[in-house]
């Protein structure tokens, strides 16, 4: 009888055939990014423009498709032109007009439109080949590999054709040092300077890969490599969770199945007992990515050991941290992975029903999940007797209704049950008494997306990535005042500096770095001195923040840290469900104090009061919301005490943010007397005749800043 494995293999054959006929048979493919961010940037119109251009009579034969988030949010919409044997060309900030030029010049004329490409924007040479030398911890010990490549390329006169860069860990540490050559997709292992010389001569110059130095295996982590085309951004990344994001069409089951989708499920159903699955996850060292960092295998073990007539698996896709969008992007880019992770979890703990609790604010993610669930059900991957294995499992979506506290697991369960989403004390933990009192496992989106990787590539391999206590990778949504904003995934142990400066490309507009915030309203702000902290659960906690779910916001000299603390407190205070007093009253009083300080009404001793109250709220609150709410205040006081003092003692906001503490004045030398500011001023407090320098009446000024926005000559000073 056909096993689940046979069945998925058969599905894969069919999928690949269909894709070949519809897509890969074409010499060229064009993919348009299609996620919430991309659509906001105008990707929909761009897709339509391509569709129209390519459907005209006599148009070149090109397969057009959509993919999920491509990661580079600041450059969206991103369009890739992928031709066999070439480095994919990524066009950025594409508009319908640019689309026309791309079709005309590149697709028809075979000439890349240089000025629209990502490499042009990133100021990288347009070379024929790129060598990515692994910069991971293990490989770095094999000194001199990068230098050997650079020397060889120089000696052979290949500088115009070959670029040499540093890449993140390829996840092949046991075979390091490694280097990867793309677009050819060859991964070299156990390199020595002698081998490098040979590779340079035979492969880089002669275009014949050196088979005896190459690694013949396959690994999920390497799937993304041939599609880089933007090594400045992707070089330091290692994509496991996001392995398919920006690669496959998220609305196509065929595309997911073609890239080993549902392989892990098939393997689990065919050859592993539930206990073996739990053991594998334990062994992998995978920890929860939702913020807590609880070992996933242990959680599954607890639920698996419970005797009950019904158990549940829940995926937490509430993603309430303001400033985080990795779970949304993962679902929008690769929804089937989440379903597969849930199903494997269900099999492991003995649950037949799964729920995805997702925020109503994510309509596109919801639509793609609904579609994925329907497709999986139609293909026999969900429902009764999955793949003939006698395992039943089904998944339902439940929508959140805008309450941050519902991300907390006990509140989330209440919300799924249709009640007010209020947390309750633990124990009992949900693994004992969860949904409707039955044993329930709640896992974050990213946690579940890692599960198929653990199964396919093995727990030992997964455990070889990262640091001693934090395994694998972490996805961050990098935003704020950094050049490359977007979705990044780095191996655990990468330093904050590497994320902000290498992947993120440094601070926008050449301003000075001030702080990086992780963990959202539950986390803290880390100053420049902490930039060399490695990204892992324990190091970030030691540095006064938390790993959190993955929001990472970069702040520069123009950010006021007191105002940031106030912002987060306003958030938690508003989201406090009101059940327990320390959180309900404590956050309110803390917020009032912070508001006073930012208005210039702070008093000596306020900081000490804040710290004392923070301590009480932390210790006495019922759930994680209150327990973590003071963190932004504590960490900003710890690292930026001078800013608090400036607000309280000198009544000044050094960053010029707090409206009551800034003044606006005219710089007479720059003022041309154009009267633009005087016309905009809502209280008419700007005086001055046309063509003469204006003056702001400080008594009447309400500090709204409209004059600053109106001035085209940099003549308004904000201090």
């Amino acid at each position: 009888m056909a096993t689940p494995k046979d069945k998925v293999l058969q599905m894969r054959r069919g999928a690949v055939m269909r894709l070949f006929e519809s897509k890969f048979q074409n010499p060229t493919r064009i993919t348009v990014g299609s996620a919430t961010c991309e659509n906001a940037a105008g990707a929909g119109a761009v897709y339509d423009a391509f569709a129209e251009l390519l459907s005209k009579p006599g148009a070149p034969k090109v397969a057009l498709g959509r993919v999920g988030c491509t990661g580079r949010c600041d450059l969206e919409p991103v369009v890739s032109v992928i031709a066999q044997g070439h480095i994919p060309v990524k066009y950025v900030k594409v508009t319908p007009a640019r689309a026309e030029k791309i079709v005309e010049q590149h697709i028809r004329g075979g000439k890349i439109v240089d000025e629209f490409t990502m490499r042009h924007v990133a100021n990288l040479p347009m070379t024929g080949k790129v060598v990515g030398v692994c910069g991971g911890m293990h490989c770095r010990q094999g000194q001199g590999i990068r230098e050997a490549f650079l020397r060889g390329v120089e000696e052979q006169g290949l500088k115009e054709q070959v670029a040499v860069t540093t890449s993140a860990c390829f996840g092949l540490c046991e075979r390091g040092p490694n280097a990867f050559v793309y677009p050819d997709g060859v991964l070299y292992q156990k390199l020595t300077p002698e081998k490098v010389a040979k590779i340079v001569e035979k492969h880089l110059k002669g275009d014949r890969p050196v088979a005896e130095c190459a690694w013949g295996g396959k690994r999920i982590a390497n799937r993304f490599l041939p599609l880089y085309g933007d090594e400045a951004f992707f070089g330091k990344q290692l994509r496991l969770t996001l392995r398919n994001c920006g690669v496959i069409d998220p609305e196509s089951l065929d595309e997911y199945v073609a890239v080993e989708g549902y392989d892990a499920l098939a393997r689990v159903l065919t050859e592993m007992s539930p206990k073996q699955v739990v053991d594998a996850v334990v062994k992998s060292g995978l920890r929860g990515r939702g913020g807590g960092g609880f070992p996933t295998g242990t959680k599954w073990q607890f639920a698996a050991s419970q005797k009950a007539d019904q158990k549940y698996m829940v995926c937490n896709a509430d993603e309430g941290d303001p400033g985080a969008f990795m779970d949304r992007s993962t679902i929008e880019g690769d929804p089937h992975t989440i379903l597969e992770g849930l199903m494997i979890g269900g099999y492991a703990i003995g649950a037949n029903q799964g729920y995805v609790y997702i925020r109503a604010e994510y309509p596109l993610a919801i639509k793609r999940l609904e579609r994925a669930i329907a497709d999986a059900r139609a293909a026999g991957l969900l429902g009764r007797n999955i793949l003939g294995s006698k395992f039943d499992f089904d998944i339902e979506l439940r929508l959140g209704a805008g309450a941050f506290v519902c991300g907390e697991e006990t509140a989330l369960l209440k919300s799924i049950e249709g009640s007010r989403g209020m947390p309750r004390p633990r124990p009992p933990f949900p693994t004992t008494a969860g949904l409707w009192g039955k044993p329930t496992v709640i896992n974050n989106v990213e946690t579940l997306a890692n599960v198929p990787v653990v199964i396919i590539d093995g727990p030992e391999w997964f455990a070889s990535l990262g640091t001693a206590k934090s395994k694998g990778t972490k996805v961050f949504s990098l935003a704020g005042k950094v050049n490359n904003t977007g979705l990044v995934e780095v191996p655990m142990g990468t330093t904050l500096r590497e994320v902000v400066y290498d992947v993120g490309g440094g601070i926008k507009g050449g301003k000075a770095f001030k702080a990086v915030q992780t963990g959202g309203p539950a986390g803290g702000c880390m100053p420049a001195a902490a930039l060399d902290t490695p990204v892992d659960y324990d190091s970030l906690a030691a540095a006064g923040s938390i790993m959190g779910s993955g929001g990472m916001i970069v702040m520069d000299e123009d950010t006021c840290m007191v105002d940031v603390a106030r912002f987060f407190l306003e958030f938690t205070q508003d989201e406090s469900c009101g059940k327990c007093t320390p959180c309900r009253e404590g956050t309110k009083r803390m917020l009032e104090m912070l508001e006073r300080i930012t208005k210039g009404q702070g008093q000596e001793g306020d900081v000490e009061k804040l710290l004392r109250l923070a301590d009480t709220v932390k210790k006495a609150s019922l759930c994680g919301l209150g327990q973590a709410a003071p963190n932004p205040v504590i960490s900003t006081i710890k690292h930026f005490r001078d800013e608090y003092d400036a607000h309280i003692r000198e009544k000044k906001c050094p960053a010029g943010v707090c409206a009551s503490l800034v003044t606006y004045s005219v710089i007479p030398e720059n003022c041309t007397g154009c009267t633009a500011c005087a016309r905009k001023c809502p209280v008419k407090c700007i005086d001055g005749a046309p063509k003469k320098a204006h003056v702001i009446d400080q008594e009447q000024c309400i500090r709204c800043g409209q004059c600053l926005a109106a001035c085209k000559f940099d003549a308004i000073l904000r201090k």
Partner: protein
Amino acid sequence: MTAQEEKVTTLAELPEPIARFIDETRDRPNADSYLVAVLQMIQKHFGYLPAGALNTVSQKMQIPAAKVTGVATFYHFFTFVPKGKHTVSVCMGTACYVKGAGILVDRLKDLLGIRQIGHASKDGQFTLEVARCVGACALAPVLIVDDKVYANVRPDELPKILSKYGFKPKAE
């Protein structure tokens, strides 16, 4: 009967798809748990939760009115006042805030003459809201008008964006 009493005891007819959804889910295990989903459908249909509709939900789903109200008032997403024709929301996520979303809110209040978040302009054209992070942080600050997301919005662009929805700026 006073007007107030009448309001709380009237039953409003639910739109057909919502009534059908309640009927379809009635026999499923834990049918109560669809309450939030039903409220979401009602809000989507009417733009807010009319009192009469809540009473009907209570009857049809056999859930005490107190619980229905309790749930409806708990979640930020639900509102009890009718909305303007268009909804303008400013994202107040961290990235947007750091990049000046607060200034956008102030400007919008000014432009639309709306004093309080959640309320509609006098002409009933616009409701101003602040959104929890919509997850488009890399495009901060963002503004959402109905379903369309505007990226990297500057305060001086606001009149132009609003004019697409029939806004006429006051003469300066």
